[in-house]
């Protein structure tokens, strides 16, 4: 209840364009939204650009938010859309850099479960891993696996066909699988030393 009234207060202030409430809203969702933006970008600076562009949209369109659905979800959607726009804008530039896959043999990890992996991995590791993918794979994977969009929506957002989306996802998974195992083997190595 307290949270809701606070949110309503912030919304009211933001609609009036008051700096204090805007800052409150900004701080409230900064962490989550920044981590969303990081997933769709190649660097921290780029992510910050996306974040700020997204927040500009949030503040300019706060009047359109009618209160149905959670505020966080609404903002998150805006952020994702902004990131996709950003992706389209930079597509040409990004496509010039292709990443050759040169992975070494991965050590054996037969006994690990997913929970173990989740515990071991930090968000920075995740970002590092995910950024080794080509931008298209990165975006498709983030949209599908983390944000939970389906292939049709992704295809529409990225102006690609559903088949492309599916194949991108499969390839991204394959690469990430390798990368994660490599990462874990490295970690295990360090821990042993």
């Amino acid at each position, binding site marked *: 209840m307290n949270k809701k009234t606070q949110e309503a207060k912030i919304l009211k202030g933001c609609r*009036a*364009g*008051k*700096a204090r409430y*805007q*800052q409150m809203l*900004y*701080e409230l969702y*900064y*962490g*989550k939204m*920044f*981590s969303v933006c*990081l*997933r769709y970008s190649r*660097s921290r*600076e780029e992510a*910050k650009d996306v*974040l*700020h562009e997204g*927040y*500009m*949209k949030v*503040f*300019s*369109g706060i*009047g*359109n938010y009618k209160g149905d659905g959670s505020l966080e979800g609404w903002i998150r959607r805006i952020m994702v859309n902004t990131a996709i726009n950003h992706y389209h804008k930079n597509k*040409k530039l990004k*496509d*010039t*850099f*292709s990443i*050759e896959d040169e992975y070494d043999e*991965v*050590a*054996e*990890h*037969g006994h*690990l479960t*997913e929970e173990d*992996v*989740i515990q071991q*991995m*930090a*968000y920075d590791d*995740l970002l590092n891993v*995910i950024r080794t993918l080509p931008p298209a794979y990165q975006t498709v*994977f983030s949209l*599908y*696996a*983390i944000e939970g969009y389906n292939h049709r929506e992704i295809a529409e957002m990225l*102006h690609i*066909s559903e088949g492309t989306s599916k194949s991108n996802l499969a390839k991204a*998974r394959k690469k*990430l*699988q390798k990368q*994660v*195992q490599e990462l874990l083997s490295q970690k295990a190595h360090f821990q042993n030393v």
Partner: protein
Amino acid sequence: MSREFNIDKIFREVADKHEEAYDPQDWNVLQGHLKANGLQAQPSVLTQVMRYIVKIISTAAVVYMMPASNQLNNTATPSAVDSKTITTQAAEHLTGSAKPLTHPNPDHLAQNNHTLTKNTHERKKETDKKILKSKKITQHKSKHQIVNKQKGSNVTPHKKRTPLQLNTPNKKARGFVKKTSKPLVTKQKQNIIKQTNINTKDDRLAKNTGNKNSGVVKKKTIISQSLYQVSKLSPIQQLDTLDNTTYRHSKHLAPHIDSISLHTHQTVLQAYHDNWTWVQRPRNTFQRVGRWLGISRKRRIPTPNKAKQVNAKFMAVDDSLKTDKPSKRKKKMATIRKVNQNKSLNLGAPTLRLNKLLSRLFFDKPNPTVAKSRINSLPKPAVYPIREAQLGFVYPLSTNGVDAHKYSNKLSINALIGSAAALDGLEFAGFGNIEKDYVKGAQFAGFFNTAGSHVQGLQAAGFFNNAGGALAGAQLAGFFNLAGVTNRSASRLAHKPTMNIQAAGFGNLNFNGSLNFQAAGFFNIGRQIDGFQGAGFLNISKEVNGFQASGFVGVCEKIHGAQISGFMNVADQVEGLQMAGLLNIAHKVKGSQIGFINIADSLTHGVPIGFLSIIKNGYRKFEIWGSESLHSNIGYKIGVRKFYNIFAVGAQFLPDKFRWGLGYGIGTIRNINAKSNFNFEAMVYHINENKFWEENLRVLNQVKFLYGREFSNGMSLQIGPTFNILVSQDTPESNVLASELPPYHFFDSTINGINLKLWGGLHLGLRF
């Protein structure tokens, strides 16, 4: 054996758990953007003034009331040579030997810190004894010398304030030595030199580790106070106190002492500026004042950190190219070159940028949400005194007289031209009506009606109507209607109107709000249509929900419904039907396109019906096939899977004869499962025998029922029966009565020189 993880789950959970740490610096950046775009309300003047005052006071307090602003802060330094010589000479005096006690160059000192401290420690005892013997003399001499040196170098250290500059450890140390050497005895100086040595090292350590801000002020006050107290005492007392306190606790004090040299007046100011995101130092008093008041220009020079980041971005490509292996580098360069080549090739391809064009036409802001927020904050419309009735001839000759344009009328009847501020009722005029502001009600005129702002109600005129702002109601004119063209700012109405109509004999223009019905003899330009838009020649609109019909050309950005034109249609997004006599062009179609030629980037949920359909992400295949009559064929199939066009060429090779055919057809594919499909195709060939082009009738009609097997690389194999009908005319000049294309047939009849043959055949083809 390496185990497969559920990668999705791992990443989702890690991502869900994570939250980035908040960086308050970012808010300042965003706030700048917000202010620039007018998304943040300005605080009232009073609060602004209050903020300035608080800012000035707090700045002044921070800068000048800091306890650090004692003598230590005036760090005017004579030239390096001076301080060096002074130090060495003083040291020589002390020890009475030619060897300098300490090396005068602090940089060097810092490096040899350990050995030096040892040295000084050992020599301290010796010097102590000597000093006790020749205390006064050394004092006098050293003081005398220092004064002389200062005179020689023409520097007055106390009064001159240094300009802001970066404190290198070198300068700091020098300044410190110089300063303290005056009130204190040389012995004391020696100690302090030693301390500064430690300091410089500590400075570096602090800089390296990056934690120099914490608790600085407190430490500084303590140290400076203690030093200040010391300097008040007599020389001998000073010696003792320093020996007892500073020196004895030098270990303890070492980390504190660094703050003395580090945090002078300037650095405090610097730190303060850093906290307020002022990174570039002000160059003169005016700039500084501007900073305080917050009216100075935004800084242009990026901070070193930022510059580094930007630089790194640009250098990343370069570096990657440099560090890579030669083979890899070649590959990368090749890809870059390839992209560049493709770019130049793509130049010729036309790209549809309809939304940009239309936005320019309707003067839309690139970011519509921003524009909306501005509209919402518009002031409310003015209120005018209302007159019940008005009668008049032309403007000054009326019951309202000269002030007619100040009143709003409920009923107004004018013989020729009526003029008023606004209308809240009914108005008639023989020639025209002029309202400065809004119209609420109905206006009738023989020739024209014009309102400065929005119109709620009806405007009817023989020639033209003009509503400056938005239209809510109807505009009927013999020739021309305008709405929302002349006065763009007054756009929003208080409530959504139910029905908006524009009808004119020649043209309609509506740049504001939406319309339900727009009809004109020649052209329509409407921003948003929720209903019908019809014109004899041209229709342009940004969004249509309903039906757009034009005699020649229809242009629209978004269509939900149908767009029908006599000649061509252009749209960005279509949901529904796009139909034209010749050409349909669209970016994204959800539905069908019907026309002679259809062009779209993507088409879903429908079919493009026409002679040629070019769908960018549709179905495009070559097929090579053979059949019993035309032995070898090559064809191109273009469209979507549900409906595609076929262009084909086929030939029959016989020992004595050569026949070839030019064909066109349509086809459809229905999937049986993922790998196999069913194909239905209908084709028409024109057959030429033994010559390039046959003028007589020779038409081969084919219906094919094919089974297709698809392979993973996009190829597919087609096989199935065909049913053929050949209609041919007698050609007596070449001694052929009728075509004998088919090797066999089960029906053959000739009526009036027209031969009909029916037979069944086989099709075997490969698509790629």
